[in-house]
C-alpha cells in the first residue's frame, strides 16, 4: 500500500508539473507579447511595463519557463496586470464563495441521486421507473444557466422569497444571509448534477440486482434487504465512487457558470472578467488552482476506490486496464 501511495503522489507531482507546463505554453504561444494585449483594454504605460517585467518578456523563453516553474512551486501566482494586487489572496477571497457553493451543490446532488437512482433501478417495472429515466434524460440535456434563470424568474422575481443574486459584502459574517443567497445557485447546480448521477447510481444498482452473488446469499436464506445491505451496497458504491471525482470537478464547472447567472463574486466570475481584460496572471492563477484542485480530488477518489475494492490493489494506475 505504501509503495502505491508513494508512486501515486509522485504521479500527482508530475501531473502538476505537466499542468504548469501546459499552462505556460498555452499562454506564451500567443502571437506577440501578452503584455501588448493590455493596450486593447486601455491600460496605462506603467501597467504595461509592470506586466512585461512580471512575465519577463525580455528574457529568453527557457529562462521564463524556469522562473514560471519556481513561481508555481512556491504558489507565487504573481500580481494582477490590472489591479496590481497579488493574485493569491484575490483567489483566496473568491474561494470563500466558490468552494461552499460547489460542495453544497455536490452534497445535495448525491443525497438526491442515490435514493432516486436506486428506486429507478429496483422499480423499473412500475410506472415511475421509466418516468425517472425520462427526467434524468432531460436533466443532462438542460443548460445549467438556463435552469438558474428559470429558478430566478420563479422564486425571486415572481414569488419574491429568495434573492435574485449577489452575495453579502461581508462574506460569511452573517451565515444566514450568505446561505440564503446560495440557496438558488446550489439548487440549480444540484438539479443538473443529480440528473447525471442518477444514471450512474441506477446503472450500478442494476448491475448489483442482476448479480450472481446477490442470488447466492438469497439462496442461502438472506432476505433481499439484508443481502442488498450487506453485499449490494458496497459493490454498487465501487463504480459510483469512481466517477464521483469527475462529477465533483464538473460540479465545480457548473459553479463557474452559475456564478455569472447569480452575480456571485466567486472564482468563475473573476475568471470571466480577467479573460475579457486580458489579465493573464489572474487567468493563469485561477486555472492553476482549479487544475490543482481537480488533480487532488482525482487522487483522493483513486485512493478511496482502492480502499473499497480489493481487486484494484494489485494494479498501479487506472489507465493500466
Amino acid at each position: 500500500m505504501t509503495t502505491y501511495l508513494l508512486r501515486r503522489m509522485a504521479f500527482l507531482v508530475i501531473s502538476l508539473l505537466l499542468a504548469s507546463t501546459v499552462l505556460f505554453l498555452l499562454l506564451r504561444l500567443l502571437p506577440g507579447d501578452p503584455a501588448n494585449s493590455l493596450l486593447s483594454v486601455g491600460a496605462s504605460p506603467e501597467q504595461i511595463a509592470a506586466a512585461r517585467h512580471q512575465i519577463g518578456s525580455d528574457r529568453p523563453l527557457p529562462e521564463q519557463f524556469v522562473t514560471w516553474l519556481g513561481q508555481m512551486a512556491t504558489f507565487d501566482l504573481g500580481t494582477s496586470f490590472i489591479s496590481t494586487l497579488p493574485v493569491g489572496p484575490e483567489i483566496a477571497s473568491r474561494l470563500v464563495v466558490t468552494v461552499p457553493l460547489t460542495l453544497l451543490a455536490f452534497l445535495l446532488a448525491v443525497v438526491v441521486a442515490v435514493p432516486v437512482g436506486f428506486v429507478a433501478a429496483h422499480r423499473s417495472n412500475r410506472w415511475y421507473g421509466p418516468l425517472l429515466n425520462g427526467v434524468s434524460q432531460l436533466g443532462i440535456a438542460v443548460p445549467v444557466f438556463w435552469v438558474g434563470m428559470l429558478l430566478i424568474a420563479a422564486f425571486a422575481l415572481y414569488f419574491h422569497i429568495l434573492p435574485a443574486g449577489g452575495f453579502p459584502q461581508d462574506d460569511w459574517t452573517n451565515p444566514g444571509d450568505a446561505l440564503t443567497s446560495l440557496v438558488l445557485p446550489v439548487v440549480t447546480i444540484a438539479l443538473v448534477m443529480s440528473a447525471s448521477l442518477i444514471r450512474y447510481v441506477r446503472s450500478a444498482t442494476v448491475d448489483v440486482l442482476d448479480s450472481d452473488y446477490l442470488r447466492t446469499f438469497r439462496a442461502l436464506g438472506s432476505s433481499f434487504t439484508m443481502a442488498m445491505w450487506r453485499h449490494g451496497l458496497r459493490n454498487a458504491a465501487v463504480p459510483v465512487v469512481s466517477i464521483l471525482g469527475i462529477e465533483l470537478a464538473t460540479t465545480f464547472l457548473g459553479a463557474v457558470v452559475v456564478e455569472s447567472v447569480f452575480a456571485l463574486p466567486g472564482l468563475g466570475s473573476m475568471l470571466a472578467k480577467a479573460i475579457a481584460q486580458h489579465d493573464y496572471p489572474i487567468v493563469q492563477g485561477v486555472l492553476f488552482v482549479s487544475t490543482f484542485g481537480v488533480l487532488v480530488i482525482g487522487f483522493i477518489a483513486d485512493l478511496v476506490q482502492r480502499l473499497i475494492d480489493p481487486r484494484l490493489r494489485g494494479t498501479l494506475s487506472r489507465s493500466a486496464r
Partner: protein
Amino acid sequence: MSQTNIPGPIKATDPDSTVPAARRRGSATLLIGCVLAGAVVAVAIVSLFWVPFAPEDTSGGRLAPPGPPHLLGTDKLGRDLLTQLMIGARVALTAGIGSVALGGILGVAGGLLAGFATRWLDDTISALLDILIAFPTLLLAMLVVAAREASLSSAILAIGLAMSAIVARLTRVLVKRVLAQDYITASRTSGTSWPRVVAEHVLPNIWPTLLVNLALQLGLAVLAEASLSYLGLGAPPPNASWGRMLQEAQATVLTAPLGAIAPGVLLVVLVVGVNLVADGLRDVADPTRRRTR
C-alpha cells in the same frame, strides 16, 4: 396452484430472448432521437436559404410580443426572435459538429498512437491525457478563447481540443483491448502488415463504440458552446447563439418570457435528440449488452 410473478434477481437465463427486445427498444429510441434532432437540423438547413427577417434588422421595436409579422416577437434590440432562433440552430449545430469533428480526428489519431505505443511513450501520453482531462473542459475552452478573440471558430477550436483528450483516452483503451485479442496475433503471424491490421481489425471493432461516444459528445459540445456564449466568450453578434440569446433575455424574463424560454427549449430538444440517437445506436449496434431493463 397459482400463477404469479415472483420477485427475484434479474438474470437473463435465456439471453436470446432479450436481443430482439433490446434491438426494438433501441430502434424506438433511435427514431425519437432522430425526429427531435432532425427537427433542429431541418430548421438550421432552412435558415441557410431563408429567414423571415435579416439578422441585423432591428426595426421591429423592442421586446414586441408575438404576432404578425414577428411570429415570435422581438428581442431587446428589436431583432426578430424567430430569425434569431433559426440562425441559432445553425450556430449550435456548426459548433457541435465542428467540435466533434476536430476532437474526433485529433482524439482518434492520438488514441491510435497511444494504443500502439510502447510502455514509456504510452505512459507519458496517458499522463498527458489525464492532465488535459483534468483541465475542466469549460475552463480549457475559456483559456483558448482568452488567447484568441471570441468567435465561433475559437469556441469550436477550444471545445474540440478539450474533447480530443477524452476521445483519445477512450480510443486508447479500445485499441489496447483489441490488440490484446487473439485474432490480432493470428493475423500478424500470417503476415499481415500493421496498417492492414489497423484497417481490417482495429478500426472496424472500435468504430461502433466511438460513434456512440462521439454522438454523446455532440450534445456536450452544443451545451459547452451555449455556456461560452452565455458568458460572452462565444460568437459575437450578429451571429445568434442560443446561449447569448438567453443571456440577453435574462433581464426581461418575466416581461418577455418567450425570449428566455424558446432558446432553452430548443437547446434541450437538440441535446435530448442527440443523446437518444446515441443511446439508440448503442442498443442497435450491440444489443447483447446486458441491459435487460
